[in-house]
């Protein structure tokens, strides 16, 4: 079987499938260990209860569902909350070492909208620790990895997915993988926007490929803005400033020096959910209280230089090196940046199976767990929990099915698409088209949306799609990033269209989706998810009802509502800027 993507989800899936006895190949666009998972900084959410003993999976489940504004798949949220502690402990058996409590257990820190201190972390480089541990495990198990290979088309035998086709980035040669099952773990699509914390890889190609093959894309309109990205200088705009800064006690002020989160969310303050904090910063800037470069100040000076350097070393380094700001002496200037796609391929909660047989998805490329807004730290646990589940399910599936038959015509077709930019007398520059798409999405489908701007954006996307057929790239197929960008562009346009079409139809404000022309939630829309699907190479939209909570889980919310706060009093003080011993 084939795993596309070697981030946290892909590697965890490969490990599990290999354990189930399947012969696994992992394909990744970059070198091994460079996937976007390394950018995760703050931590991994798991209700271990090491620091706040009252924490448990039920509370984590409720936090996740509330954060997602109840359009999440409850079953995914339940499995995620139940299984993430085990996955974290398991990661340590692969060699990871999290920061520790004085008595030797895993230390946990506070994070936005988590009731208790719940994020297991390693300073501010948790993602690196995770990816390195999984990578070591992959190497130890001898799993086959194909680095710097891009796959662009799923091969089908009837309705069944039986492999994938693409090219080798290094020499430009074409490659086809024949597989009984394919797992898509290709991450998100932040690169569709201009100001983003995502790397070049986040082009939505895995989801685009699944969409082309006929799988359903769930909640595409839900794109998360991380409240704190770097603002200045322009070269670093969008680079992530981890939520751990606020988890460790950093606070936000406007140009008047006022701590404005006290007003927007007096209870959770800076540790409110990401959509709320991002919107608050946006509102402050709109009201003329922004900083010099249109953001807010994030201040950690009160923590003291020692603690800053110990708990936030890479933030210290990042600002010192890239922005000439010593964060022990000056505040950081921050503004919202595109961070995460809550939407993705629609999957079955238990198995990660998509609507196509033989096709699975996990991690950011899959959807359902996070609903309308993801909580910080839930993505890393998502990768492990559902990576493992997809790996196990696909591993079991391949035992029962035969090899499919590859249809050469599909390969020919894709080769033609791939070769077009090199041979055609086109005039369009793929990079510039990509930049125009990013600008259009930033302006039209960004943090604050309205019907008019969304429709303008949709027109621009359709026009760019026309022009993308005339892309031309000089040079050969040998390591030619321009050629690679030309194909990525098609996926980006498909996903962008799905985002905008769904954003137009969701005429309400919910979670990350904020409509200036519909500021309130609409209970009717709260009962549906939008689905984008492929019909005759067109992006079509339909709705599906949100899966209904079973009685015993619904009861958790009822109980919580009758006994506020959501937790017994002794531990009800948590997200107060933290007092964990370090």
């Amino acid at each position, binding site marked *: 079987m084939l795993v596309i993507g070697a981030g946290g989800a892909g590697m965890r899936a490969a490990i599990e499938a290999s354990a189930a006895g399947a012969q696994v190949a992992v394909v990744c666009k*970059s*070198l*091994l*260990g*460079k996937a*976007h998972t*390394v*950018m995760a900084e703050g931590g991994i959410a798991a209700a*271990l209860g090491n620091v706040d003993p009252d924490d448990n999976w039920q509370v984590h489940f409720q936090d996740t569902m509330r954060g997602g504004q109840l359009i999440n798949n409850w079953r995914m949220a339940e499995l995620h909350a139940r299984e993430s502690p085990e996955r974290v*402990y398991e990661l*340590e*058996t*692969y*060699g990871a*070492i999290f920061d*520790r*409590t004085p*008595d*030797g*257990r895993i230390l946990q820190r506070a994070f936005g909208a988590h009731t208790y201190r719940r994020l297991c972390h*390693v*300073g501010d*480089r948790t993602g*690196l620790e995770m990816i*390195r541990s999984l990578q*070591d*495990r992959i*190497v*130890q198990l001898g799993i086959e990895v194909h*680095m710097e290979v891009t796959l662009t088309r799923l091969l089908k035998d009837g309705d069944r997915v039986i492999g994938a086709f693409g090219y080798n980035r*290094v020499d430009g040669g074409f490659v086809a993988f024949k597989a009984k099952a394919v797992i898509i773990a290709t991450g998100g699509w932040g690169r569709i926007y201009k100001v983003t914390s995502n*790397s*070049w*890889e986040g082009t939505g190609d895995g989801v685009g490929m699944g969409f082309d093959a006929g799988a359903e894309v769930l909640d595409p309109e839900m794109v998360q803005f991380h409240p704190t990205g770097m603002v*200045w*200088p*322009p*070269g*670093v705009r969008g*680079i992530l400033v981890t939520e751990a800064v606020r988890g460790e006690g950093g606070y936000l002020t406007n140009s008047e020096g006022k701590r404005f989160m006290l007003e927007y969310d007096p209870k959770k303050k800076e540790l409110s959910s990401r959509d709320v904090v991002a919107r608050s910063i946006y509102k402050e800037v709109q009201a003329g209280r922004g900083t010099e470069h249109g953001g807010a100040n994030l201040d950690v000076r009160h923590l003291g230089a020692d603690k800053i350097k110990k708990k936030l070393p890479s933030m210290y*380094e*990042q600002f010192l*090196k*890239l922005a000439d700001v010593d964060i022990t002496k000056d505040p950081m200037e921050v503004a919202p940046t595109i961070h995460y796609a809550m939407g993705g391929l629609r999957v079955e909660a238990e198995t990660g199976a998509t609507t196509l047989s033989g096709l699975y998805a996990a991690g950011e490329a899959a959807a359902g767990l996070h609903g309308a807004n993801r909580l910080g730290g839930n993505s890393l646990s998502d990768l492990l929990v559902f990576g493992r589940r997809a790996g196990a399910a696909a591993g079991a599936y391949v035992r029962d099915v035969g090899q499919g038959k590859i249809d050469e015509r599909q390969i020919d077709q894709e080769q033609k698409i791939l070769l077009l930019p090199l041979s055609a007398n086109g005039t369009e*520059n*793929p*990079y*510039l088209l990509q*930049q125009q798409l990013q600008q259009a999405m930033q302006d039209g489908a960004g943090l604050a949306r309205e019907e008019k701007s969304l429709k303008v954006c949709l027109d621009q996307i359709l026009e760019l799609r026309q022009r993308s057929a005339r892309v031309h*790239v*000089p*040079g*050969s197929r*040998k*390591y*030619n*990033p*321009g*050629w690679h*960008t030309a194909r990525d562009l098609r996926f980006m346009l498909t996903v962008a269209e799905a985002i905008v079409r769904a954003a137009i139809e969701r005429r309400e404000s919910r979670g990350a989706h904020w409509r200036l022309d519909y500021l309130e939630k609409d209970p009717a829309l709260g009962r549906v998810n939008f689905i984008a699907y492929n019909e005759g190479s067109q992006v079509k939209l339909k709705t599906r009802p949100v899966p209904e909570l079973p009685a015993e889980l619904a009861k958790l919310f009822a109980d919580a509502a009758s006994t506020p706060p959501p937790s017994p009093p002794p531990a009800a003080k948590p997200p107060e800027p933290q007092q964990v011993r370090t």
Partner: protein
Amino acid sequence: MSAKTPTATTTSGNPIVLQIFRGDTDAGQEQRFEVPAVEGMVVLDAVHYVQANFANDLACRWNCKAAKCGSCSAEINGRPRLMCKTRVDEFGDREIHVGPMRTFPLIKDLVTDVSWNYEVNKQIPGFAPAPNEPVPYRMLPEDTERVYEYRKCIECFLCQDVCHVLRNHDDKSAYYGPRYMVRIAALEMHPLDTRKRTGLLHGKAGVGMCNITKCCQEVCPEHIKITDNAIIPLKERMATDVYDPVVRIARKLRPGRASQPGSESPDGLAGATQPQRFAVKDVVRLKTRGRRFARVGRLLPDGKLEVWILHMNGKVQHWDGPKIVRNSDVTNNYGPLDEVGIGSKLVEQYITEDHAAEQPH
């Protein structure tokens, strides 16, 4: 290549002049580009500008653009650096020369074939906790702290690029290189790892090839003290296990007790059910008695150790002992060695092999 220099139309102040290496295994030379200066611009931004506007097919690797993934390694004005972390304004009006890492075979432009590193990595036996180690793990903060430094490595391979053993002698068969010394150190110093890798260090990994010029730690973008904190302690361990006469005798008298370099069992567990966290002559730090430094003399049953405690009289070292302590009374997180003047000096001492008289036993 093209004679005329592509120039940007919009400029704020003087444009930046880049000389980027272009070419592949057949031929190559630098090509001149002018890029408009933007405040806070890094070399990677400038390369991206060139890619988007002048040379769509310019090959370079990059991912995070925030110095977290280690993809955009290059040689900038002759120095191995990350392009995403190198500001263009630090060069003033000088031209910026950007070339590929020279220690690895060129693929195209700024991209090199680094696959050798991944092959080396496969040869290092991985993390091996005791089979009966209870999960969830308990590890004390003071025992884990030291490992974090090694695990900060982002695998940019700049240290491999600058390592003169790999670079000048163009011989990659004798030494794994600094990156993999850091990796081995991370495994060896993991509080729950039970495997011995000193045989590998002595043999194929070739820790002896390093003669401590510290070039690697100078270029490390993560500021890992590769030589001081990884290579030197590994040299010590290796020397202890391989050359130490006391250990040799102990090995003869009590086969299977002390580690046997080169004969590690394939699963690396060496028959141990109880993880032995220290090797003979490891430098450790007492958790009590003023956190003094000590050196492990013998490994005793029941997780006990015989240690010799270091007293410094000016610059003269005096080892006082033996004292019997429990395994848990000492930690291998002993902080920077330079602090007390041990470290490289001790390595020299052990490698010369004629130190038995002045040492415990």
